[in-house]
């Protein structure tokens, strides 16, 4: 597995997220180095998915700053005032970020191939020919070489999620966000999808921010695990340490409940 460098590629500074009066994240400060794989664990409602959604700009940041490659993603600090960044700047940074969703979110009105080449061609400006060649090799990589012309609804959940991974990778993201990507899948196909992601982790230098309940997977691919509860980081560290000898009582309780299920 490639080792992370020291350049922070994602930086959270004093991040706060509120939905109305409900504070989901508070005073959150952490950074992710280039090539690092960080897994966020914790009970539902602890704010871990919100973190991914903030990085993808799917949620509005209500306080603090997020930096991607050192540049502000949503707001910047200008003379002590918090001002929104331009749409152009946000879009430029966002093209470096890819996301795979729990519910796949493939476009049902397009074929598998069209799903994969849409953004490379129309956002990155790649030639259609190059994008198609790349799409076929990605489909090969995710084990669906003969599904290019299929419609997503004719595929099983596991197959759809593999297409979604190919679609995200087609953008050559620096950062890949994985939001409970196996939670909606049948148990017997979870392994296939995780193996593909393991392979991506082993063969590329993409930075990964992962939310998952698959603890074995988290342990395999992560450099760091962060345990969340009530919108705060309870404990963080190397996966071996977190999973074998967690210090915090809350982490111990969470892990025994989760691992007890398996």
């Amino acid at each position, binding site marked *: 597995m490639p080792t992370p460098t020291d350049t922070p590629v994602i930086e959270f500074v004093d991040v706060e997220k509120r939905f109305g009066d409900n504070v989901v994240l508070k005073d959150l400060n952490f950074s992710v180095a280039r090539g690092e794989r960080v897994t966020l664990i914790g009970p539902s409602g602890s704010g871990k998915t919100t973190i991914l959604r903030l990085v993808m*700009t799917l949620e509005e940041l209500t306080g603090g700053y997020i930096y991607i490659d050192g540049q502000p993603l949503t707001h910047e600090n200008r003379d002590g005032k918090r001002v929104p960044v331009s749409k152009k700047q946000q879009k430029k940074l966002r*093209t470096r970020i890819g996301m795979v969703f729990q519910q796949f979110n493939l*476009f049902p*009105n397009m074929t598998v191939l069209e799903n994969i080449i*849409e953004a490379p061609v129309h956002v990155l400006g790649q030639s259609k020919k190059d994008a198609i060649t790349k799409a076929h090799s990605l489909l090969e990589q995710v084990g669906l070489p003969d599904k290019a012309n299929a*419609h997503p609804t004719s595929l099983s959940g596991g197959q759809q999620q593999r297409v979604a991974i190919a679609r995200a990778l087609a953008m050559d993201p620096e950062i890949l966000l994985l939001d409970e990507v196996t939670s909606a899948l049948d148990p017997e196909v979870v392994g296939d999808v995780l193996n593909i992601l393991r392979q991506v982790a082993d063969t590329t230098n993409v930075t990964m921010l992962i939310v998952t309940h698959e603890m074995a997977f988290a342990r395999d691919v992560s450099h760091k695990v962060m345990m969340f509860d009530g919108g705060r980081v309870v404990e963080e560290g190397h996966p071996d340490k977190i999973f074998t000898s967690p210090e915090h009582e809350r982490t111990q309780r969470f892990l025994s409940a989760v691992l007890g299920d398996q």
Partner: protein
Amino acid sequence: MIFTSGIIRAADEVDDPTMVDEEEVRQSPFWDWEFAFNALPEMLMAFIEVTLVVTVLGTLIAAVLGLVIAILIRVLPAPLAWIVKWLANFIRMTPIVVQLIFVFWAFLGVIDNLTVGIIVFGVHYATYMSEVYRAGIESVPKGQWEATTALSMSAARTWRKVIIPQALRSTVPSLGNYAISMFKDTPFLLVIMVAEMVTVAGEIGAPAFRYTEVYVIAGLIFLAASYPTALLVNRLEKRLAYAH
């Protein structure tokens, strides 16, 4: 019958030659095939030249403008969206007959009657269709929007390639029904002196005082056009469903 003979007696007094003879009316059968066949060509012409033209062009305007209205309400900043929304509400909540008369007099001598009819029908039904599109747009799952953000797709591309195609799928039946409904409203064109088929039917029937044939034919022509349209909409709906 008292009413009829009253009129005829009055006609006898002024000795008007165009008036129908009482005996003739009594003797004529309920249904006269020859009269019906003679009336058919003129009615079909009126149907094609007016009813069909207004419905087809009106539907085109309504389908396009309705989508534009629905999208504008979604993408414009709040005060502008509000203005568009209430303009559409106003048009939808007032009778089409009033709108026909208003536009007719407002643009008297500027736009010919048939064009007034096409525009008013198009705009009026656009406000209905915009509601159908709105519902269709809202039926597209949130995850689809999120996927377009995750892929950094432009707003134009998102609408054109992801949202509209999926929104349309559920709107086809309702849009088809509004087209048929517009078609059945065309007799209102009478109020701006456009002689569509039903008005022509009345004009054909008047001299002979025979209305059964012409109005039955008008009804059958409407049915003959509406029913296949409904079937077509139905088939289109099924095809769109299978494509996904």
